[in-house]
């Protein structure tokens, strides 16, 4: 593996200021994404930050790199296309829980089972913020929201457990109140060869009065502090993924190196697709015509 040369985080400083509410958890995530990319030594020109739609999906506009602010729920699919087209690029997907675990959950699961080399940072605030406070796929059961005035009757999605059974090879959880810890998770996710999910508690200070900074501060603990925890063990990882209540773990829940989709794609044998000539080999082409005669 090549030596990593860390870059100054200023290299990733975007020119536009975020339009998030003061105190939004996403500020911490933005900082951690920039720091994580800098720590991983990715050049801004080789980084593409891809998002869907939602408050948190505005993030690519605040990073000095290439970016693609796509459609609601489609960030993972767009990122897949970018990654397959040019494997020299590092592709980081950023978005919210509604975007990734609601409308986009199909792409999320399939991208994991492909083990594409993508890093997915989900700002999970357990609410639809941009549309002013409806229940999301990770909203706690019985929580009252604008669309569940009598309490949410549905069970929340467990993204870590879902990732574990879907084939993701790097699964972590962060907290935007711990941006340094989070930036380490993101940096490791970017460097991980394979699909990396970093689910981040990113409190919505305006519409989620349940899952607040105080809520998380009281409950979270770092898996790294438990020296006996083996992140390579899927069974104990599932236990940690399921842990919710008085104590909630953050850190690397699971990590396992497996062949990536890119490893087995024969079309990459001559390098990234974007670097290949658009001219077809005349002999190959002649063969295609011949087999139809």
């Amino acid at each position, binding site marked *: 593996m090549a030596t990593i040369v860390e870059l100054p985080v200023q290299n990733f400083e975007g020119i536009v200021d975020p339009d998030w509410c003061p105190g939004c958890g996403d500020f911490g995530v933005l900082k951690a994404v920039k720091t994580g990319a800098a720590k991983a030594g990715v050049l801004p020109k080789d980084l593409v930050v891809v998002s869907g739609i939602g408050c948190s999906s505005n993030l690519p506009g605040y990073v000095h790199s*290439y970016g*693609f602010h796509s459609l609601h729920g489609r960030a993972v699919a767009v990122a897949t*296309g970018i990654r397959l087209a040019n494997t*020299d690029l590092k592709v980081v997907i950023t978005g919210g829980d509604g975007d990734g675990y609601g409308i986009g959950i199909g792409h999320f699961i399939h991208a994991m089972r492909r083990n594409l080399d993508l890093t997915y940072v989900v700002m999970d605030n357990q609410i639809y913020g941009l549309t002013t406070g409806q229940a999301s796929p990770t909203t706690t059961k019985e929580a009252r929201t604008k669309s569940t005035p009598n309490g949410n009757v549905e069970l929340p999605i467990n993204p870590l457990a879902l990732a574990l059974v879907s084939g993701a090879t790097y699964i972590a959880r962060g907290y935007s109140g711990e941006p340094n810890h989070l930036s380490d998770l993101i940096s490791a996710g970017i460097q991980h060869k394979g699909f990396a999910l970093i689910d981040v508690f990113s409190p919505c200070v305006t519409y989620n009065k349940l899952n607040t900074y105080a809520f998380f501060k009281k409950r979270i603990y770092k898996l790294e502090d438990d020296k006996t925890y083996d992140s390579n063990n899927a069974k104990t990882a599932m236990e940690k993924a399921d842990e919710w209540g008085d104590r909630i773990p953050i850190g690397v829940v699971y990590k396992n190196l497996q062949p990536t989709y890119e490893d087995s794609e024969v079309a990459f044998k001559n390098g990234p697709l974007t670097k290949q000539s658009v001219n077809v080999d005349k002999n190959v082409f002649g063969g295609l015509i011949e087999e139809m005669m």
Partner: protein
Amino acid sequence: MNEVTVGIGGAAGDGIDKSADTLAKSASRSGLHAYGFNSYQSVIRGGHIWLKLRLGEEKVYSQGDHLNALIALNQDSIERHAPEVEPGGAVLFNADKLRVNIPVQDNVMTVPLPIAQLMKPFGAVPPVMQNTVALGALLFLLGMEFDITATVLADTFAHKGKAIIDQNVGVLKAGYEHAREHFVPLGYQWKFSRKRRPFLTGNEAFSIGAVAAGCRFYSAYPMTPASGILTWMAEHSERCGIVVKQMEDELAVANVAIGAGFAGVRAMCATSGGGFALMTEAIGLAGMIEAPVVFIEVQRGGPSTGIPTKTEQADLNQVYGASQGDFPRIIIAPKDTRDCFDSAVEAFNLAEKYQLPVIIVSDLQLSEHPETVEPEHMPATVPIDRGEMVTEWSGEKGEYKRFAFTPSGVSPRALPGTANTLHVVASDEHDEHGILISDVFCNAAVRRKIAEKRMKKMDLALKDLPAPKLEGPADAEVTLVGWGATEGVIREAAQQLNASGVRTNQLHFKYLLPFHAKEATEILKNCKRTIGIEANATGQFARLLRAETGHGVHDQILKYDGEPFEPGTIAKQVRGILKGEKVSLDVNLAEAREIAYHHVRVYMHEEARPGKITKAEGNGFGEPVWQIEIVHRDSGEKQGELQVGVETGSTYTWQPVH
């Protein structure tokens, strides 16, 4: 013109397509032109398959109006198609299992083949090899050369080894020799040009065109009738260096292609109407972020799941209106198989030159029927125009603006990975840099200017595209107006009309958006009488034409029964229209027979078949009815009678014999 039309009928799983392919390749290697049409059902095994192959010394543009020879692989095929065989023709069938139990036309030769006896010397061979016996017999009857077909079989089975090749050629020979000993040839005298031509479907031509154009990324979700592109691409991906990605749904298919197009490869995806409906939001995204992507929409019979294995041209409104808001897009409707190749190449160039989504509209008939195409019309080297690309940028040029306002509306495109051109593309409205103006930074002037910038590209693209032209006599009495894949069949209908004294010309549209409104108006205002011909129920193109030119069509021939147009039927309907007759939508005799087959399949478990069919009036149904005798398949004993309305198509009564 010297030509012959062969029909092969049987059940799915009978290997009909392979036999037809062998015959077509034999004809093609002899220098004949071929056009095939496979009328299949969406079943893996069983059901009725009907494949027609038209061979001619000159180019044939449709499956035509005739049937000269029939290979029947099951009893249904004899009952359905033997009466269609024209005088001078032949019906070939397995005499061990089948019999001609229905009257055939005068001077039609029945050719019973003792399959078991002929295959005996070859030991245990798969039952599908009965097709090869029949093919051998047919070769003799049609005056085609045995050796050429033997080489086709040798190539087809090359991967299976000499023993299998010998067996196939032997069985072919047995059929050929049997026919030579017992029958006289049908009298075809061919002038074989010996020019070899590829025999391929529209889907294959799209694929090959994409390869020639440098396509490096193809995504799809299986959907008939577009799946042929996916399977071809997958089979050839390694050889051609293309990433072929089957995705989880069409939302992913479209978005992954847009991601790839944005990143800088030539990307394409294809689907049918239902899948395209799922792609529509993404198409607007491609328009908004100005990403080059090629979409192929292969229409099938709608609405909803519709008739998945039947053809229609009823998705024009959908492609025209796909996605919210105004955005630039180009829509191309190729007119024939060769044009599928050209359209794919054009689409990639237009997509990159104008940085927008290009939608190619095909249909089942075009995408799935195979025909011979001149090899020189599908060259390895094609014009490639990647548009204005920025490969390096220095501060001296100022700041790079991805969506820079330019006179043409086209902003030079830098790809991710390029230094000093960092930018974010967004589905939200944005300024020249790509910075959002959608919410708090809203700005009316910038919104107006960037909307104009995007749409300006359409004016330029229009100048790039050839205008429609009138084909045929300028002073024609009638002008046949069509779009897309019906060009060939309308051309043949016009030829038939001109030959019979009706001066006819043809106005056909390939480029649907941007639309050549000025040129089309000039042509239409001088046309004496226009007849729109479309495979849909509402005349979607005629409506577009009226919107764009102020000229509607005077009359319409619309077909939405799932079957392709036939030239003779169009010509007949045109003559009727000119005489002031309405196009009849009544149930005809052959259709009444199919309604009876449906009744037998659903209620009688295939034990019966339609027998005598007569038209009766005054039965108290308020319309004439078809009285269809249903008889036992084996004994011929009458089982009952079905009454079907001629006008409504309603199955009124079923009276069983007790």
